[in-house]
């Protein structure tokens, strides 16, 4: 894979920030967009914009074709059986909330258990806290190993016959841990529980095959995988989705509407109340085309190399603490002794380097790590070893700078 050639396709990366060429190391928060995605959204608005599924006129048909075409691209991207299993949402958060509202509230009762982990993003914690409160179910956590991984034995001890839902991130957005979601799904199923995978940090970076993982729900966001913001996906097994009630009611999702009662459209549309996110879905379709052209395996391989190089280089800096396991996705979360991550991020920004500082929407994990905040550099297919070198230079300068001012 030629990261430099790929880079050329991302217009935003070719700019100076604070007098330095931009080094974008915040793709775990949101990825940048290639020209093809920008064009797809632009072309839709310039040429095809119309509401979908009301296709008497030509534009309506074209918009519908593109929108539903994007759904099929998503289906093939994660190897789902049918487009009935692909629901477009606003993003991972909405996808998880849909399951927590519709599935969990209907199927959980007092004494049932929901099992998650301390490394979850807030969006895979709070919906379950709320569902537990609403149903009387108990929220349980699989304890983490010291290096921030999940031991299957610990999962087996936590997941019991009372467990109804297991919800775990595919990849931790802080630790970079790649979780054994396939094995966890098998344990969940042994006990009759359903398995939801928060794939926000998984789908953009690795080949996802929902058939092989055998998860019941897989949630991800378009904007972290070169697509637009405001579009995401909820994959669910058809029999589960069939049973579930919609969460939003209104236009688009109905079959017949009577004065006092209504019926829903079939899957997947019963979950897509209101005019859908048409441009977003089309942009996501273009992003999938782009990623598949590069090849998901090639992306994973490139990121693995970058992660290993970044770990090796960053580790050489004195007074640096790195969090998470050795084997990891393409991100490095760290702290430098005596320099608060905000200050670090501000100094790096002055060098044109964009990193994230804060709690990364993982306050329980910050408590587990016993820190209030961390800095994180996250990589994607357009990042290069030179970007890692710039980061390391920036970190050395940060240390010097704060050493001087102290």
């Amino acid at each position, binding site marked *: 894979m030629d990261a430099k050639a790929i880079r050329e396709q991302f217009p935003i990366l070719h700019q100076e920030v*604070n007098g330095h060429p931009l080094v974008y190391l915040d793709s775990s928060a949101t990825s940048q967009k290639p020209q093809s995605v920008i064009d797809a959204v632009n072309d839709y608005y310039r040429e095809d914009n119309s509401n979908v599924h009301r296709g008497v006129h030509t534009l309506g048909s074209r918009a519908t074709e593109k929108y539903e075409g994007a759904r099929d691209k998503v289906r093939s991207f994660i190897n789902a059986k049918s487009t009935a299993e692909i629901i477009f949402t606003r993003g991972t958060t909405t996808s998880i909330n849909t399951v927590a509202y519709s599935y969990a509230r209907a199927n959980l009762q007092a004494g049932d258990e929901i099992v998650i982990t301390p490394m979850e993003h807030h969006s895979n914690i709070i919906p379950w806290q709320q569902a537990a409160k609403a149903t009387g179910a108990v929220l349980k956590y699989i304890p983490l190993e010291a290096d921030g991984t999940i031991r299957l034995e610990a999962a087996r001890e936590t997941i019991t016959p009372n467990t109804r839902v297991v919800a775990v991130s595919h990849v931790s957005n802080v630790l970079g841990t790649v979780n054994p979601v396939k094995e966890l799904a098998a344990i969940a199923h042994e006990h009759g529980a359903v398995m939801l995978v928060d794939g926000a940090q998984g789908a953009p970076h690795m080949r996802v095959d929902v058939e092989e993982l055998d998860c019941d729900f897989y949630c991800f966001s378009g904007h972290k995988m070169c697509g637009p913001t405001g579009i995401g996906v909820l994959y669910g097994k058809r029999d589960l989705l069939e049973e579930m009630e919609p969460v939003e009611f209104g236009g688009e999702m109905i079959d017949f509407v009577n004065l006092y009662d209504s019926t829903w459209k079939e899957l997947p549309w019963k979950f897509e109340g209101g005019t859908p996110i048409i441009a977003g879905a089309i942009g996501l379709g273009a992003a999938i085309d782009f990623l598949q052209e590069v090849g998901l395996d090639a992306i994973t391989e490139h990121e693995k190399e970058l992660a290993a190089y970044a770990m090796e280089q960053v580790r050489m800096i004195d007074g640096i603490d790195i969090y998470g396991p050795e084997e990891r996705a393409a991100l490095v979360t760290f702290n430098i002794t005596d320099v*608060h991550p905000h200050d670090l991020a*501000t100094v790096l920004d*002055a060098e044109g380097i964009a990193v994230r500082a804060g*709690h990364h929407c993982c306050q329980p994990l910050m408590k587990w790590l016993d820190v*209030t905040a961390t800095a994180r550099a996250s990589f994607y297919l357009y990042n290069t070893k030179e970007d890692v070198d710039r980061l390391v230079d920036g970190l050395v300068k940060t240390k010097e*700078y704060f050493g001087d001012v102290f």
Partner: protein
Amino acid sequence: MSFNNLDTLYRQVIMDHYKTPRNRGTLEGNTLTVDMNNPTCGDRIQLQLQVTDGKVEDAKFDGEGCSISMASASMMTQAIKGKPVEEALEMSEGFSHMMLGEEVDEEALGFDDIVALQGVSKFPARIKCATLAWKAMEKGVKEE
């Protein structure tokens, strides 16, 4: 931007307050206690005020955060100690204006060291760090 610009942000006096904070700790006895955090970044502050007859007799803070938030808390407690609550609130308003890059009468407001934080206004992402302690103070005296 070069490191010279950074110096506008991290002036010596700020680093001094960060490294050697004034009024860091807890107050004994009957005090107003306010806990506040910056939910976007995780900075948190506990501010304790002892207010008697409309006057801030004593102030102490504790917490965790970046150099800007902690230095600002240190400077604020130093500045409001011994001041009538009304004056402290005026200072807070003046500080907000300063963070927006507006001209303020630093002398009349009694800003002293606080003036060093003026440079923060050029770093929009960091303004919330600087105002955290002031927001906590406002919340405390208004709740009283």
